[in-house]
């Protein structure tokens, strides 16, 4: 009894402690650049009244990484294509390609190496559109560590997320002639940058569109100012030549082969999604707003950065957005099959069969988009100016 009374009284105290609520700053966002006046690329009224229900499984909770799909919903692109798309958020334990394989979704987003590992384990899933044309993985370090390429990793503490996110690091080490077991110290890293700021890690793994910005949103305790890009060195695995393909749209291979209606749906879905991404290329701020509307806990400054950097992973798409470049594919497969991590494990143990990806769907979609006059290459795309604030709020 005594103990629970104590707990109860603690509850009262804690509730009182919560009542700190003071007024906040009503600072308004004034970074409106890169957007036109409420532009539209899609016309929902053109679509048929009868819609096909489609479920899309994301890799994570709502964020600008998935802006193109949210924009395609908000702009009516899916409705125009005769689709009623439900976007399923990811979570810690949700594996999109497994959800797809078990029938919980019609399409799923996944990084290529991870999806190929699921395919090797028996899931008949097929890459039908390679949205991110480039790898967004970085290794970020402070200037004084002097790490400007993978060769400089020697003797340093290198942060790694593990869970299959580490293979670009090991491929870069191998390419630089370094032995991951003896020449560097691989340090387990959380999905944030606190290890780098605390000095536990010399070079931390980071995505261009997320963790890298987290450093730039943090205050340098020595100066009291935010860290800037000038304080940091960045090693890009794409530039190191070991980039592995990331976000792609995966479809159910059996249904694609045997169900003509699903095949048509896949083309319509890819086409409308690409329109969403083209919209986000031209309307960075609006797309950020669409994302934040769908994810009210997200910091809008951070999401604008993310939208901008995600665009940089897509545009320009020289062969058209979504097209699966065979050279990049082969490089990804080669690294996945031949680069062991510290445990000696590779992502894949068997060669990848030719059916693991197809450009057939995306080619149909691109053809129709070009005929409609949609720019699917984005050769003139440039980053907009994004000023990060503390906490990325």
């Amino acid at each position, binding site marked *: *009894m005594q103990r*629970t*009374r*104590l*707990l*109860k*009284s*603690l*509850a009262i*105290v*804690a509730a009182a*402690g*919560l*009542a*700190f*609520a*003071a*007024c*906040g*700053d*009503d*600072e*308004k*966002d004034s970074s409106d650049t890169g957007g036109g006046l409420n532009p539209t690329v899609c016309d929902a009224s053109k679509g048929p009244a009868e819609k096909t229900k489609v479920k899309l499984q994301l890799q994570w*909770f*709502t964020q600008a990484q998935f802006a193109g799909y949210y924009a395609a919903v908000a702009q009516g692109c899916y409705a125009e294509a005769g689709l009623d798309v439900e976007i399923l*958020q*990811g*979570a*810690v*334990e*949700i*594996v999109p390609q497994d*959800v797809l394989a078990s029938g*919980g979704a019609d399409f799923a987003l996944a990084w290529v190496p991870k999806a190929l590992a699921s395919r090797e384990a028996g899931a008949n899933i097929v890459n039908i559109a390679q949205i991110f044309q480039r790898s967004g993985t970085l290794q970020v370090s402070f200037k004084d560590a002097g790490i400007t390429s993978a060769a400089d990793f020697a003797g340093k503490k290198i942060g790694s997320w593990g869970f299959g996110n580490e293979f670009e690091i090991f491929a870069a080490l191998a390419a630089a002639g370094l032995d991951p077991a003896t020449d560097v110290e691989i340090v387990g890293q959380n999905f*944030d*940058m*606190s290890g780098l*700021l*605390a*000095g536990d890690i010399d070079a931390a793994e980071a995505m261009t569109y*997320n963790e890298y910005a*987290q*450093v730039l*949103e*943090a*205050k340098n*305790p020595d100066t009291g100012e935010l860290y800037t890009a000038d304080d940091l060195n960045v090693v890009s695995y794409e530039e190191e030549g070991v980039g592995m393909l990331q976000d792609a749209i995966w479809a159910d291979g059996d249904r694609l082969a045997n169900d003509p209606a699903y095949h048509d749906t896949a083309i319509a879905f890819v086409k409308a999604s690409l329109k969403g991404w083209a919209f986000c290329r031209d309307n960075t701020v609006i797309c950020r707003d669409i994302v934040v509307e769908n*994810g*009210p*806990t*997200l*910091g*809008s*400054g*951070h999401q604008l950065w993310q939208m901008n950097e995600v665009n940089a992973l897509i545009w320009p798409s020289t062969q058209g957005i979504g097209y699966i470049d065979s050279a990049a594919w082969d490089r990804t497969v080669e690294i996945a099959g031949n680069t062991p991590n510290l445990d000696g494990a590779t992502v894949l143990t068997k060669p990848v069969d030719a059916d693991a990806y197809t450009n057939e769907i995306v080619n149909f979609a691109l053809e129709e988009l070009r005929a409609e006059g949609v720019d699917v290459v984005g050769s003139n795309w440039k980053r907009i100016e994004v000023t990060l604030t*503390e*906490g*990325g*709020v």
Partner: protein
Amino acid sequence: MKGVKRKGSLRPLIFGVLALALLLAAWESYRNWIGPWLGTEREVGKVLGFKLLPRANDLAMPSVFDMGREFGKPQVRGSSTSVFQAVAEGTFNSLKLAVAALVLGTIVGIGAAILMARFKVVQRGLMPYLVISQTIPLIALAPLTVTWGGEISFFGFEWQKWTSALVLGAFLSFFPIAVGALRGFNSPDPAALELMDSYASSWWSTWRKLRLPAAVPYLAPAMRLAGSAAVFGVVVSELSVGLTNGVGYLILSYMQEGTSRPAKVFTAVAGTIVLGLLMAAIINAVDRYLTRNRPQEELS
């Protein structure tokens, strides 16, 4: 007796406040004075060669005052929702789900206990599986419930993510209830059971008049275990399956800003603590209601 209860109830409150104040004071003094004195501002402190002492800086140990200030800030820039409102709302949503999970777990647990008390063969057959069921890691079950659930729909009901969280919370909470209730149902004195037999009382009527009342003192501690299990199950499920309206998701979401706003995540942690305390208070109230006619010493 009631008067005695009321009179003593202020002291634990004072002790509770004192304990919390002491904890916060210890936190603040470590980060402000003890840590710097030991030189752990930048490096983890070692005790007998083991890295034990946390760094005394804002990143590892944000100030209690910063945490308090975070509550007052808007959740995101330009938003009219403050962090306090968001955390309170998330905590309330999680609490609703946890209470529902506890109710479901209690019904299933007591049902299982009745079966086991009635049929010895069920007890021998079921008990090992109940024990095994609790050794399955929650994070392994969570994605499975989403997959299985996707196939389930009846009477217009569709499996949602909250259903997964509810089921997992109930799954964790039914076990202590089943075990506690079973012990309680078997606790009456054999002489009392024989007396009921001599009245030719049916099993059900013996259960209702003798076994069930006898089980109440056993149910109270079981409910406390089950309550914390339900909270744990719901919060972890929120993270695992992606239920975005609960306090579990807020922890994950605020952790994203952990690099630059380390104090913010503690607001959501405080939310989960309050969630646990509210759950304890609810169970306490239920316990008091059920044992209102019992002498004090029988309470556990």
